[in-house]
């Protein structure tokens, strides 16, 4: 007696699919057939369902008093930094924007996407290099006007803790890679994620001449 060995895996899969709420119609019919035909399947199914119900009904503990405050107060004062060439891909979303704070090293910021329609035919020819660094204000901007991506990358904020803000449209996956150099210069690269080719490179700096 008992669940037939050859069908045991299937039987277990069906019972667990029922427990997890992912049983299809055909699977439901098959499970019902097995339940009717074999009391041991019914016993197994009832026991597993009871076990899982008991698991799901276990009370969730409240967090200990003071844990939240301990977590928050234990965090470093400095904003988290990115490490290495950690690119955040733009995927294929056409219109995007990101902002980041950094204190040094090589970084790529997190991205926030806004969705929009891109008409690539309105773009001009790609520019493989170019820099527009406006150091007269507490902001420096690089214009990007490529076939694949168009918009601007802006360096803003204080000179010792600059932020990178982008406003870009992209028709294919690209990454923005930034590197902070001595003297407060920030090198910015627009990289094609597919070919790894640098499409545009520029240098930005806040606060003093360039």
């Amino acid at each position, binding site marked *: 007696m008992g669940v037939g060995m050859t069908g045991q895996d299937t039987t277990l899969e069906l019972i667990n699919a029922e427990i997890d709420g992912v049983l299809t119609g055909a699977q439901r019919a098959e499970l019902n057939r097995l339940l009717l035909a074999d009391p041991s399947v019914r016993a197994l199914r009832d026991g597993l369902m009871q076990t899982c119900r*008991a698991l*799901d*009904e*276990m009370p969730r503990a409240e967090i*200990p008093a003071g*844990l*939240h405050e301990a977590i*928050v107060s234990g965090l470093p004062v400095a904003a*988290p930094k990115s490490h290495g060439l950690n690119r955040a891909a733009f995927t294929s979303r056409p219109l995007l924007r990101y902002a980041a704070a950094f204190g040094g090293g090589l970084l790529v*910021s997190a991205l926030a996407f806004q969705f929009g329609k891109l008409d690539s035919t309105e773009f001009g020819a790609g520019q493989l290099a170019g820099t527009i660094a406006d150091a007269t204000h507490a902001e420096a901007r690089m214009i990007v006007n490529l076939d694949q991506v168009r918009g601007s990358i802006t360096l803003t904020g204080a000179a010792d803790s600059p932020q990178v803000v982008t406003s870009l449209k992209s028709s294919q996956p690209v990454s923005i890679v930034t590197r902070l150099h001595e003297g407060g210069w920030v090198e910015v690269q627009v990289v094609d994620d597919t070919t790894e080719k640098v499409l545009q490179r520029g240098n930005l700096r806040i606060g003093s001449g360039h």
Partner: protein
Amino acid sequence: MNDESDSALVRRTCSGEPRAFEALVRRHEKTVFNAALRMLHDREEARDVSQTVFLKVYEHLGEYDPSHKFYSWIYRIALNESIKSLQRRKPTAALDFETPDGTPGPEGVFDQRQLSDGMAAAIMSLRTEYRAVIVLRHFMDCSYEDMAAILELPEKTVKSRLFSARQLLKTAMETRGWASE
């Protein structure tokens, strides 16, 4: 705002807004703590693990890949930290775990508290890899797909492990006197 996505909060944190990370903590702390508690069965250890998890998340936030679910990432860290905490225990510690009152009440039935305590003991009797899938599925509400991503295992393997874990739990409960009908 409550509706703000995890990714948006991560982005704001990286932009220098610590309040945004506090919102992330508030959103996930209870799940992380309960996961650690079920993995460790020790409130103090679970508390320490929870603190460590959020500190690690913060320190490595710049490495977070926004193409993946944030909670998958944080849950993976929570499981790993719980397992590390288990490994730091003395080898005999796990064997010292006692099953709470395993006898039914006067009416011959277990009350909810007994059942819950018995289940907690049964969970602790599982090997770590089985306990992890039970915690992910039943205490963190993860789908098969989420579990596969968190454990970095094929979905088929995760399902097989979960099904086995449930059977082991059922058997463990039966041996503790909680017979299924």
